[in-house]
């Protein structure tokens, strides 16, 4: 049967799996690449929900300042190969697939219900009737890609590791599980339809077998942050609005200062420092923390305690110093007896940029609920995702203070963690899907 199929004109197994097939697939976007062909269309109308399509290419990867979608499937991989060429090959194939998937196309050349009858379908099929749903796929490189814990340089990349990609320190109270921590590669799949996000990770994983294996993955729902002023501030599983003071897409100057790695960060001793790290220019760093909330004990705490811990009202989300949600907190405001209206150990005070040398971050987290824990409690919480220009100044100091002083820590457990360098985007108009086509993170390998 195989021979029969292989004999069919123009549809050889090699053609499906090899570069010839990929090139043919990308033929649909012969002018200007896959993304450019489709990307501009949604801007003209006002696409909503499922029909929303975001460009895959651009100066920065999509999925960062993109308005946060409702659903997340995040996955990390460990490379099982020791071949640098295999890594490059995987990134090329991932790039090609991602460029297609984000535009609502199937992962491979053939639709899930088409192609050689004795060959597994190119695309797994569960998203066949679903639109792009605003899917973005964002790729990151973990510190272990550059050098493993014991210092092994598997891929000749150790000298290219940015200083900003130093492993995060142990924070007080960390209860990190190895099976939820780290990973050579990470992909953040966000979409407004959970099945679209899961479909993307599943098909990327399929392309990786033999080169990389999933280390862990995490589903998320109910985005917990706004990344655009047009979005309503969502609520976390404590029932409070979260991320009110987030960095927004509408603040390009703030993004330049706090989000994107600049070409001179090396010289400034900022994001890089040491080694050739120009490949990160236009990129960002992604911090992921799986933060379990002990929601059962939280739910037994009084409204007074909850608001005192958060530092905001539960209903409106206004700082306790007064005003409405987007009113700046007045940390000097005193109440009866001169006690600060926003307590000293409240979350909003400790996490606020004014308590952290002005440092801001772009938060993009999601709620999660992974069943229950065997003791009758939900394994639920926040899958914290944040993009920063330099985690050493924008994340580590803040988390150190929070872990030590935040009254909320009583109800939190950090069970997973990771830090990834997120390289710049594939340039608009670049050719993808050919044996020497453009791929995400290409600058690191040239």
């Amino acid at each position, binding site marked *: 049967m195989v021979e029969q199929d292989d004999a069919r004109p123009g549809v050889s197994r090699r053609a499906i799996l090899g570069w010839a097939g990929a090139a043919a697939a990308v033929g649909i976007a012969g002018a200007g690449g896959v993304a450019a062909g489709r990307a501009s269309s949604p801007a003209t109308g006002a696409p909503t929900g499922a029909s929303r399509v975001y460009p895959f290419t651009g100066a920065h990867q999509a999925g960062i300042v993109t308005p946060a979608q409702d659903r997340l499937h995040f996955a990390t991989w460990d490379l099982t190969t020791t071949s640098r060429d295999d890594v490059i090959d995987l990134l090329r194939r991932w790039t090609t697939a991602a460029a297609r998937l984000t535009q609502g196309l199937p992962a491979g050349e053939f639709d899930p219900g088409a192609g050689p009858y004795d060959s597994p379908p190119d695309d797994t099929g569960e998203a066949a009737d679903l639109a792009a749903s605003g899917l973005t796929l964002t790729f990151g490189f973990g510190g272990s890609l550059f050098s493993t814990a014991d210092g092994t340089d598997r891929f000749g990349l150790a000298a290219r590791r940015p200083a900003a990609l130093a492993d995060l*320190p*142990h924070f*007080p*109270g*960390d*209860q990190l599980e190895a099976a939820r921590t780290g990973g050579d590669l990470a992909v953040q799949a966000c979409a407004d339809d959970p099945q679209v996000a899961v479909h993307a990770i599943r098909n990327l994983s399929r392309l990786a077998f033999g080169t990389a294996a999933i280390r862990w993955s995490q589903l998320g729902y109910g985005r917990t942050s706004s990344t655009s002023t047009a979005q309503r501030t969502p609520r976390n599983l404590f029932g409070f609005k979260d991320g009110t003071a987030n960095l927004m897409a509408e603040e390009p100057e703030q993004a330049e200062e706090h989000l994107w790695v600049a070409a001179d960060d090396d010289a400034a001793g900022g994001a890089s420092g040491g080694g050739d790290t120009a490949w990160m220019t236009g990129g960002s760093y992604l911090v992921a923390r799986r933060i379990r909330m*002990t929601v*059962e*004990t939280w*739910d*037994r*705490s*009084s409204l*007074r*305690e909850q608001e*005192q*811990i958060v530092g905001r*009202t539960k*209903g*409106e989300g*206004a*700082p*306790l*110093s*007064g*005003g*409405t949600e987007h*009113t700046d907190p007045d940390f000097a*405001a*005193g*109440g*009866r*007896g001169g*006690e600060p*209206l926003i*307590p000293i*150990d409240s979350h909003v005070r400790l996490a606020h940029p004014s308590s952290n040398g002005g440092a801001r971050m772009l938060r993009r987290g999601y709620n999660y609920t992974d069943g229950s824990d*065997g*003791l*009758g*409690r939900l394994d639920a919480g926040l899958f914290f995702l944040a993009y920063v220009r330099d985690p050493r100044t924008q994340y580590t100091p803040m988390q*150190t203070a929070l*872990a*030590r*002083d935040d*009254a909320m*820590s*009583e109800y939190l457990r950090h069970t997973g963690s990771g830090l990834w360098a997120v390289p710049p985007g594939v340039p608009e108009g670049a050719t993808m899907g050919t044996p020497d086509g453009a791929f995400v993170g290409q600058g690191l390998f040239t």
Partner: protein
Amino acid sequence: MRARRSLTALAATALLIPLAACTQNDVGAAASGGNGPTTLTVDSSADACAVSATTAPSGTVVFSVTNSGSEVTEFYLLAADGLRIVAEVENVGPGITRDLVLAAQPGTYQTACKPGMTGTGQRAEFTVTDSGIEVGPTGEVAEQLATASTNYVAYVQDQTEQLLVATEAFAAAFLAGDDDAARAAYASTRVHWERIEPVAESFGDLDPRMDLREADVEPGTEWTGWHLLEKDLWAPTTEANGGVAYVPLTAEQRTQFTDQLVADTLDLDGRVHADDFTLTADQIGNGAKSLLDEVATGKVTGEEEIWSHTDLWDFQANVDGARVAFEGLRDVVAAKDAELATTLDERFADVQLLLDAHRAGDGFAMYTDLTSDEVRALANAVDALGEPLSRLTSAVVL
């Protein structure tokens, strides 16, 4: 033990009042029967205190207080004499709305807003008409709460005294190198700490020095206290120590850390014996809830005593402390919410029955000897108790 906010920080000034001032007009449980609460709005501006109605039927009344002024405001419901505070909300920031919920008895009152938190405020007459709904008993609640407070302070003092004596004996054995005796004394000494844990934690500087778990140590700071000594007494294997060979404390270190623990215990004992050391009804109620939280997140999971596995001793001690707190307040609870009092009686008994099944010798089985089904049963009982116990404070002070 994890860092936690202090009891004193959470103490609500509004909740102190019933203890001191509310003798005749104390308010009962919000037993509004089939009728819902009556909700009134209060607009507190710079120059007015606009209440949406001047009367309400007796039963549960909600004043939804909005601060439309530019200063922090307060809202009071005062007795007819304009002096006695029946209920209040404080620290309402500009633009913020906060509810004052109370069980109002028929009578004549005054409402008052106090923008800027000074002066006598903007006052108006307010009448609660008789709806026929049973609102709750009047009488001796303030006296009962004062007694509860006095008794609980005495309980705390007794526990720190016993803790001090036991810690000194433990320290002597540990310093003498008699590790068997120190191990034998470890859990039974810590019981006195665990019974009053929220009080000890309210002294923010003592708790991290005395009861910090290794995972909670901030890099660059020194780990001290009970769990450091625990680890030294039940020295872990390399595998259990994260792949690093455990290095026992030197004799010098033993002296240093033991001396500090004894000194800190002495300090704690001194602080709870200070003339100005008091515990209000809401602090006692919140403390009971905190003790059950401790059990739920630290003891029933075996995380508190990861080297000695004496978690069930701590478990029992936390439950002891919570039960003593509840029993001190029980008369008040029974008068205001008899069903809650009965439920708590039953749930405390359920937990105790399960704990008793794990008694061994003078103490308890090791946590690691429990089956997963037994742990699950304990966890269920703790959650079954923790949920109604979280309503203790509001039942007492509302």
